[in-house]
């Protein structure tokens, strides 16, 4: 991990000096992880690809602001979250317009496919993604930053431009909605001991 950070720092320094090849290395090293984040935010492969592209273009323009001692991946994640939010907000149709209906739909699926069916069909990810879609862009970003990226509340506040209480409440609301949406899948033999 430390080696990768050192490699990133060296590549960033070269890219800032105008070395396009160095920036290519950074794009190829981080684009897949940014894609996963973007997919969780946008729920669509093509939208996620757009966000990845926007993230790197924005990062390139802001390379001068990157502090050498910072972690490049973390810095990139922050940009990616903001790009995702901008993307969702620019396309209102992308955000779930009827979150309550979606939640009811999801939580009422107890008579739907069994846990085994879902596992075999590889659809747990799909169910989780549907549940994520029921969150607002802000809730989704705050939740993903906390849950997947392990960001602190202070960091979430900084990236999403929120007060501490607002960040905490976004996470609370997100978790509550996720619990409601995923309830039919909880308590099965496949869930944790």
């Amino acid at each position, binding site marked *: 991990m430390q080696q990768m950070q050192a490699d990133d720092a060296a590549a960033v320094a070269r890219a*800032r*000096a*105008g070395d*396009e090849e160095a*920036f*290519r290395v950074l*794009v*190829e090293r981080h*684009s*897949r992880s940014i*894609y*996963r984040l973007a*997919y*969780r935010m946008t729920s669509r*492969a093509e939208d996620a*690809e757009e966000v*990845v*592209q926007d993230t*790197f*273009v924005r990062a*390139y*323009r802001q*390379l*001068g*602001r990157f*502090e050498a001692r910072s972690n490049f991946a973390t810095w990139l994640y922050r940009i990616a979250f903001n790009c995702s939010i901008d993307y969702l907000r620019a396309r209102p149709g992308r955000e779930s317009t009827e979150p309550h209906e979606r939640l009811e739909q999801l939580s009422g699926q107890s008579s739907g496919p069994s846990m085994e069916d879902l596992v075999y069909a*590889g659809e*747990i*990810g799909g*169910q*989780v*993604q549907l*549940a994520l879609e029921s969150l607002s862009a802000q809730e989704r970003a705050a939740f993903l930053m*906390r*849950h997947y990226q392990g960001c602190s*509340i*202070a960091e979430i*506040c*900084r990236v999403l*431009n*929120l*007060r*501490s209480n607002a960040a*905490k409440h976004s*996470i*609370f609301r997100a*978790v*509550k909605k*996720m*619990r409601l949406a*995923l*309830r039919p*899948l*909880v*308590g099965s033999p496949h*869930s*944790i001991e």
Partner: protein
Amino acid sequence: MTVHLTDEQLIQHFYGDGHVDREPEIDAHLATCPACSAAWNELRETLKLVDDGTVPEPGPEFERVMWARVKQALPPRHERGGLLAFFETHRAASWLFTAAGLAAVLVVGIVVSGRLSPARRPGTSTPTPAAVTLTSARETARSRERVLLTALDNHFQQSEMLLVEVMNAPPGGDDNFGFERQTADDLLESSRLYRTTAQLNGDVQFAQLLEDLESVLVDIARSPEKVDRKDFNALRARIDNDNLLFKVRVVSQQVQDRQRSLTE
């Protein structure tokens, strides 16, 4: 602990965001309260499912294809050359030089946008109606510039005072931060307006300074009434590391110099 744990407490406990002192108490309660224990287990199971939710992986050529897309969308090299490249490479050292240029660019922009014609030719004894109109237009432009410079001057002076207040405030969370919050909140709107204008005019570096300033103003405006020592020190370190106070002073000085030259 006699009352049940709330959802919020359970979620905070899961992510380790609660008070460290209360964690053992919550663990003890979960060990003895069946209702809270059930809720806790359900929460853990739900969030474990979230962990299990995988994202469909893109194809093996994804990185290569993405680089091709990104490369095509990157700004042309010449846009990043010259002063900007120099600024990025020698950021702190070149600030004085750059700031002078920024102020000049801004002010020249204002003047150029307001200027409608060259000065009246010497030897014209009686101004024609057109010349009168041009003179009047020049005066209007100068007035407009003075108003803009006064607004900018006020903005930078207030920003500077606010940054000085923050940098010189005693460390610790005992002092009320209300005044600083309110001032930052008041400054935010105009800062955004200036930044947007600078961006639209293509003044990248001036826009960058305003963006850095805006980011600190947001942090101050949205901080709690009483800031804890750690957050406060982090804020000061940011201002310090970005040389923000120095940059604001330099630009402020340039604006004042331009104001003086207009009145002489």
